[in-house]
């Protein structure tokens, strides 16, 4: 994964960057499998590696495939990334060890789900039971988020992009016509 990230940073061809992003997502999915989170891994592989790669390729079809030259020094983004990453790593120091049975998050509602999910919902997959039944309200919120995002993108694509792109095409055409 580190090699992929370095590759993404070093590469200037955006096609390569998109593909390396897909590779990164697949590696992340395998990490999720190792952590026994098969549902999350499936989502990561489907959405992260599959869908976003396809959508980014569709966008690349509309734009240039070379990275634009930097207009400012990368120092400020670098500092922001290092600070945020440092704060997150500092935060993980206080977390209980992974898989610790006595940790608070494994003591709260998780034992109830593990004991009762199967006979209360008839679903042997506890993840599905929690997702759709016990935490159905959260999932409804997630679906609403996807709905809102989809509608937002549709409105942007329908109204915002098209006239502007036409103008760009026109302005590109004009100098060539003059030259001819």
């Amino acid at each position, binding site marked *: 994964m580190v090699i992929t990230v370095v590759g993404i940073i070093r590469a200037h061809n955006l096609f390569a960057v998109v593909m390396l992003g897909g590779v990164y997502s697949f590696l992340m999915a395998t990490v999720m499998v190792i952590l026994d989170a*098969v*549902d999350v*891994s*499936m*989502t990561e592989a*489907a*959405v992260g590696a*599959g*869908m976003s790669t*396809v*959508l980014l390729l*569709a*966008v690349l*079809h*509309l734009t240039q495939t070379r990275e634009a030259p930097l207009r400012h020094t990368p120092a400020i983004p670098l500092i922001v990334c290092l600070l945020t990453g440092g704060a997150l790593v500092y935060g993980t120091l206080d977390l209980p060890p992974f898989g610790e049975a006595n940790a608070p998050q494994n003591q709260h509602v998780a034992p109830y789900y593990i004991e009762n999910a199967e*006979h*209360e*919902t*008839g*679903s*042997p*997959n506890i*993840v*599905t*039971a929690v*997702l*759709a*039944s016990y935490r*159905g*309200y959260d*999932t*409804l919120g997630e*679906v*609403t988020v*996807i*709905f809102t*995002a*989809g*509608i937002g*993108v*549709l409105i942007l*694509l*329908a109204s915002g*992009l*098209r006239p502007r*792109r036409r103008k760009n*095409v026109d302005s590109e*055409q004009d100098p*060539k016509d003059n030259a*001819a």
Partner: protein
Amino acid sequence: MMRDTIILRVVTKLLLPVILIFALYVQFHGDYGPGGGFQAGVAAAAAIILYGMVFGIPAAQHVISKSVVQIMIPLGVLIFAGTGVAGLLLGENYLNYSPFGSHSEAGQHLGILIVEAGVFITVASTMLAIFYGFGGLADEADAAAAEKSEESEE
């Protein structure tokens, strides 16, 4: 886009039913194994998107038209929210599926299936709508470029 490549066309035709059946398997087996509406929706959308990339977006829109997709996006949310309201009307809390079946376990099971179907519909159609949107723009750009090259040839 890539309509002339025979290998892609044949392989796509072979893969399409497999992908779609896998999506349905993930959808309806989500209770017993990994998966659910989100993953299945993305997989089903991926099948249509693959078809659209190889055979052109008009062919994909012949399978599922833009207007159907735009109806499906809110339909999924409505199914999910409506399931909650149905629970309310049957005298339980919002999004409690217990009264749907003869006993609470069967009701929960049915409720989960309905809700996952709602998730599936919204996720798949949103992905398709975004793909149609970008792909439509790309096709227009191609058409504009083709016109431009014709003009410059003249």
